[in-house]
């Protein structure tokens, strides 16, 4: 074989066999992991301080949403009102619904209200039994005290009634 081309195919063979490059520095790996952990801890402490400062317990209202449905209701959107004023309107993606259906709980709203009685209304829209458009509301009168108020909006399938059920749980 001619010596002109032999080095070329040797190079090609090496190219086929050893394609990875070495650029890993272990200390940098560790440093990056440490930074990630510390940024997470910073974010955690920031979150806690934000809650204490911006949403103190004596005025805090948190509303969560959970699902245990599939057969009788497919959620599209939720509209939440406090004392007649809409505080949030949420449209769900398929990925978010999947997370909810598998046991995830969404923090839907966090805000401040005064002590005393308040009316919470949640309007759910989606597709109900037999794929028809479905719109239902659930309301709750709450008494806000100096303790933070946590509410969970729950949508569950009712096998007995063959309908979805909407309820509110106070934690």
């Amino acid at each position, binding site marked *: 074989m001619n010596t002109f081309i032999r080095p070329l195919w040797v190079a090609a063979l090496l190219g086929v066999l050893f394609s990875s490059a070495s650029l890993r520095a272990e200390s940098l790996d560790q440093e990056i992991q440490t930074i990630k952990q510390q940024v997470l801890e910073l974010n955690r402490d920031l979150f*806690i301080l934000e809650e204490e400062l911006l949403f103190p317990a004596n005025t805090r209202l948190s509303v969560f949403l959970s699902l*245990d449905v599939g057969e009788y209701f497919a959620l599209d959107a939720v509209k939440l009102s406090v004392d007649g004023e809409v505080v949030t309107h949420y449209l769900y993606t398929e990925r978010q619904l999947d997370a909810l259906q598998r046991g*995830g709980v969404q923090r839907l709203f966090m805000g401040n209200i005064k002590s005393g009685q308040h009316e919470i209304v949640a309007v759910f829209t989606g597709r109900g039994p037999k794929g028809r458009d479905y719109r239902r509301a659930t309301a709750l009168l709450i008494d806000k005290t100096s303790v933070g108020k946590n509410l969970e909006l729950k949508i569950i399938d009712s096998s007995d009634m063959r309908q979805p059920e909407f309820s509110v749980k106070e*934690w």
Partner: protein
Amino acid sequence: MSLVVIHRLIAGLCLLACSVSAGGGERATQTVQSLGYGVTLYHFYQQDYFAALTELMVAQKTDALGVHSEHAELLRGGMSLSYGMDTQAQQIFTELLSQPRPGVEGDSAWFYLGKMAWQRGDVARAETALQHVNALPSPQLQQEFDYLQTTLNVRQGNIPAAQQYLARLPADSPWLPYHYYNMGALHAARGEWAEAAGYFGTMNRLELAGEEALSLRDRAYTAAGFAAMAAGDYPRASSDFARVRLSSPMSERALLGYGWAAGAQDDYQSALSPWQTLNQQAAVSQAVRESLLAVPYAYEQLGQQGVALVNYQHAAQAFEDELQAVNRAIAAFSRDDLQDLLGLRGDQRDNWLFGGDILPRNLQTPYLRQLISSHAFQMAMRELRDLHRMEQRLAQAAQRLQVMTIVDREQQQSWTELIEQDRASALQQRRTQLQMQIESLQHKLSGAEADGDGRALASASQIALWQRFDQATALSKKMDTSPEQQFRLELYRGLLVWEDAEHYAQNLWQNRQALQQLAELALLSEQAIERLRETQAQRVSSSFAGDIAALDSRLATQNGRLQLAISASGQALRQVAVSELQQQEQALSLSLGQSRLAIARLYDLGSMGGAP
């Protein structure tokens, strides 16, 4: 890997003993017992690991996990691993999974930890993690584990152990081709061509399905062809190269090799066909560039110096063009934004285990295709991507801290004003006056009740009438009043007494009610004043300013470290990319020199009366 499988695996990793359903698209079988844990799962199932880890750590710190506390830490370990924090994950698993735990399937956790350490090139850590694995929950995972152990042991020269793990792989295991390919590569690297060809040839007997396996087989055929050439077996080399699919990423090298194998047998006519096919393609890859010189070389061997000259000129032009393009790529990778060059800006994936490769597309990256597909480069790109996302999160944190500083300052201001104006004391003074009035009224009411004094409870209009009567009586004593006038005065007094007596019971009840309401009001206002005083005292002693300043300081420290890490990580990527491009530049310069020399040689030959 499908989303469903990802979720099942991760869930299997961390959540087997939890009360929530883990299968994709399945319904939750039981409501979570902690809102914080539920919110964590909401982000976790969306593979938003930063948000999920933050929620979980908040719930852990505020002790809000209830019955989920036990598994929360395991979940944190699993999510840390998925987020590329395998050291953190290892600490958690070592602490919680060193001993078997009922209901918790820890083998998968150790397996994925070992796999990531292996991908990072940390063989020792990979070995340590894999030693914890007893039995994996699925045959697929078990086969991958056996393959990884085989590879690790081969690498460390422990062939008996490697053979034991290899023997556990079934004949149809998708990991067998990878093993045979690795063994072939190992022998080829040692120059043991016959052994290498044997391993590469084994893949020919395997029934493979799927693009990934077929690509690997193409790679093996190509390597086998070169190994056969090295051993001097050119017919076999041609046969191996011919097996590579034309649609394969390896087809360029196989075409090049096929030509060389023919050339080595002095069959340059046959060599021309694959080389000319390559010649038509953009000269981005090494194989196409080499074919640019190989084609005129073949024509020379066939005695067609004129055609060879034209092809050398074509090659020289192509090399010049490519040199310019490679130099532009070197300049770009030396100074341009790596996030743009590597397509990191829009990549929102957090998942290190199943997130897939980062495949940037721009004018420069075709020159680095092989480099970019390597594990090491992919890892480095993920790290740089994550670091830039951390940078964004720290910028958001700075904004949030700014908002909190403003809110805290305003709240502090209003509380200070409250204290300076001593609103609580003023309220207390008014409260004291109110209490005195109540007591006076109580005393008066008690007296009237004891004496049956209706006049004391009379209404304002009745009191006015009594006042007029008293004035008239006083006047009558000073003046000489007639009996008639005396009689009228007595009549008026009788009427007023009768009125008082008539309304006594009603007035008494109304006054008692009013007094009771006043007393209740006084009690409420006392409680309100007390609350105000308590809040003032707490507020003065617990300002958030210190906490905000501490977080601000931590943020500045993290920002400093982050910028250094971004710089180091980017520099490492630039260095390896530029180094790769510089090698191409040198090879192109060499090829350009060779083509120019060949052109000059052919012109000389022509001038001396030769063919051109």
